[in-house]
């Protein structure tokens, strides 16, 4: 198991349930970290890996639903709720707030594990998207201010001559900026640059003619 391997967090105040879940989850090769309360979980320094949170609805102190609300604001793994005697309103609230699944105790191991895997997959994709965007942002940060001015014209399909006219410079200078942009952004084609610009949320220059 390397540091990138997924991890499952379990928060339940009942030690018997924690022990059982820890054993079950590790039996399928997943890393497990168990906590007796929401506070313990919040204090824990989470590894940078795809993750899933198995959360008991009834917790002393901060309840499961309250923890869910707190986590929504920040960086959170998808949640699978478990409950001793879950009521319908609570389960609806949990699902609406983005929970993967809501399982009443005692639960079926296959169902629980399937939910955990689904949660981890979802988190993995989210994490990947997030890291790709971070990489694009890093590349974009390499551009000079003038290159960032030119980029919207390039992705809008302006010819160098037109861009030069718009920015009041020479066609040759624009050609140089364009080459630098393609290199710094590591774009293999204009089409790829356009996709990168879209993901970064860069607006294309409007045609004036």
């Amino acid at each position, binding site marked *: 198991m390397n540091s990138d391997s997924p991890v499952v967090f379990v928060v339940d105040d009942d030690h018997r349930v924690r022990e059982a879940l820890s054993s079950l989850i590790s039996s399928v090769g997943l890393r497990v970290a168990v906590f007796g309360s929401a506070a313990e979980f919040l204090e824990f320094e989470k590894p940078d890996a795809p993750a899933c949170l198995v959360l008991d609805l009834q917790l002393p102190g901060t309840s499961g639903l309250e923890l869910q609300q707190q986590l929504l604001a920040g960086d959170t793994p998808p949640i699978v709720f478990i409950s001793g005697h879950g009521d319908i309103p609570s389960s609806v609230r949990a699902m609406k707030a983005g929970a993967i699944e809501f399982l009443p105790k005692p*639960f079926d191991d296959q169902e629980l594990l399937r939910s955990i895997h689904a949660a981890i997959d979802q988190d993995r994709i989210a994490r990947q998207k997030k890291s790709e965007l971070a990489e694009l942002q890093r590349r974009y940060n390499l551009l000079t201010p003038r290159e960032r001015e030119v980029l919207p014209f390039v992705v809008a399909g302006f010819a160098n001559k037109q861009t030069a006219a718009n920015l009041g410079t020479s066609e040759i200078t624009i050609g140089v900026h364009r080459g630098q942009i393609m290199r710094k952004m590591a774009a293999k084609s204009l089409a790829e640059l356009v996709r990168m610009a879209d993901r970064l949320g860069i607006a294309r220059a409007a045609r004036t003619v």
Partner: protein
Amino acid sequence: MTGSAKSKNDIPPATSIPEGAASLESILCTEELLQRTSRPPDHAKENAALVALASALAESGQSILDILAGAILQVTDSDSAGLSLLTSGFATPGDERRRFYSATIKGMWKGHAGDGTQRNFDPCGDVLDRNCTLLLRHFERRYPDLLPVSLAAEECLLVPFYVRGNAVGSIWAMMHTDRRRFDSEDERLMRVLGQFASLAYQTLGTIDNLKSQINAREKAEARLRELTRAEVGVILDSLQAQVRTGEEFHRVVVETASDTVVSIDHRGDILLANHATTATFGYEPAELIGQPLTILMPEYLRDLHRAGLKRYQETGHRHINWQSTELIGLRKNGEEFPVEVSFGEFNSDGRRVFTGFIRDISERKQVEEALRASERGLGLIVETIPGLVWCAAPDGELNYLNQRILDYTGTRAGDWAQLGWKNLLHPEDAETTAHAWSRAVTTGQPLEVQCRLRRSDGAYRWFQALGQAARDSAGGVTRWYGLLIDIDDRKNMEEALRNNRARLSRAIQTATIGEFAAAIAHEVNQPLAAVVTNAQACLRWLAAEPPGMAKAHEAAERIVRDGKEAGEIVRRIRALFRQAAVDNVEFDMNEVIGEVLHLLTGETTRRRVAVETDLGLDLSPVLGDRVQLQQVVFNLLLNGIEAMDRVVDRPKQLFICSKQPNPETILVEVRDCGPGIKDPDRIFEAFFTTKENGMGMGLAICRSIIDAHRGRLWAASGEGSGATFSFTLPVRVAS
């Protein structure tokens, strides 16, 4: 004697009040006249008196004062009445020789007629001094001259008597007992009759003068034989003038009367009409003279009048009552109006003259009409009361039913006598209601009974029948007034409530079991979930390549451990119900508290309640129904937990303690830090609840259980916040 005290006729006030005599103020109560309730004018009686006076004048003129006194006695319904006059023709004003003499007295005091008193000390003297009406009480206290008079003067009403604008005496009416008290109507009547009589008195004087002049004339005539013819002529002229003056009298009387006075001759033609005709009929008196009386009556009465007058003159038979008859008058402008007429008849030189006193009674009629309207209004009110109203005679016979009763029962007023009200009642209620009613009628006590009354569609509805007797001044029942109030809806609600109570009492038992069950389910569920998960993990470890034997072993061990724990929980639950069939067993209260607390851990965790216990060591065992007492502890703890649901500003703490304050008693206290109890006494009543979804049965049941164990359960509201429920139980007495 001061100038300002001088009265109108220049007679000085009394100066020789005997020592010890009461002051005038002490016997004076004239202002009371205005405060007393005045009886309404009796115009018929008044008119009769006026007619009698007028007739007396026309006939003789002598008996006028007697008739006046008699009339006053009658109209004021007094015990004695009379007229006192100053003796006339004496010396100067203030002369002590001037005396009052009783010109006439009628009634009980009539024996004193002709008695005299000193001018300066007599009630009449005070009247003259003050020149106004006086009402005196027991005046003999002030006027010792009157002390020997046999009958005491309880009250005496005196009105000045004027002749030619001068007060010359007083008319008085007197009560010798407190049979009745004079009112302002008496005063008015005496003034009216006095005014009338003063004219008579003037006439009397005139006639007296005339007589003396005639006397003188007769004496003179002897001498006159020698006198010149011219002289005789002068004397005769003067004599004729005097006679004319006498005839004038009647006219004067008529002119001053406030009512319309019309005299007619035997043909029905108007001989004389007074000024009041202008206001009443719109005719100047002059316009009427010589006209037939029928001009004053509407067309349809004229033939009747002519025929009646003719018949009376032929047969002496009166077609209408002469004393007071209501007729219709006709004004000059054609307007008809109600009048009240009294007639008198006298002969004048063999001619029959009829005089009518006519009073416009439009206003009275309007008042009467208004009264009738208000009576109709009252009837209308009774009819519109949204209740069923009935009245009955003192003997219990129904004699009035309002429209609503008739509408409700679908009957007519006439039906009831035939049908009998008992037949409209539900057969089951008829006897008891009839019994209650006959009891009320016999004793005069109010009626109050509930019965079912049949509606027009045959359905019976519950009514509250109320009856109240109205009584006369002697306390005798004059009438029964009754009300029927529809209480059917209320009755049905009471019935529904009784059913609800029974249902709720079952429901609370079910609910308590349900709460137990939920708590049990949670307690068993936790280890069960752990067991299942561990077993699944165990299987997976065994199925792994290579099998994780150590992990599988650990999981299997946890299964055993948690399974045992679940078994323990089940054992505890069974313990809860184990002795259900046994009423009286010996047990440890702390054990019961511990079991209940364990059952409630799920609840306390979920609601984040911190439970603190302080259970006394070596408590004596108690004797009782273990399950019931568990229920009590469970209820009190659950109440405490729920009471703190809304607490957000402080930790939710539930405290339970047990101790043995004395060798005979175990005390258990449950304290929460919720909002406290507003009404610690009522909280144990059934259906009293402060919870949104509560049924209010829990504490009522708890109290009945503790009571059954000869213990005591009470509540107290803590300082600031929180409630404490405490109960005691007797310990088992060592035999």
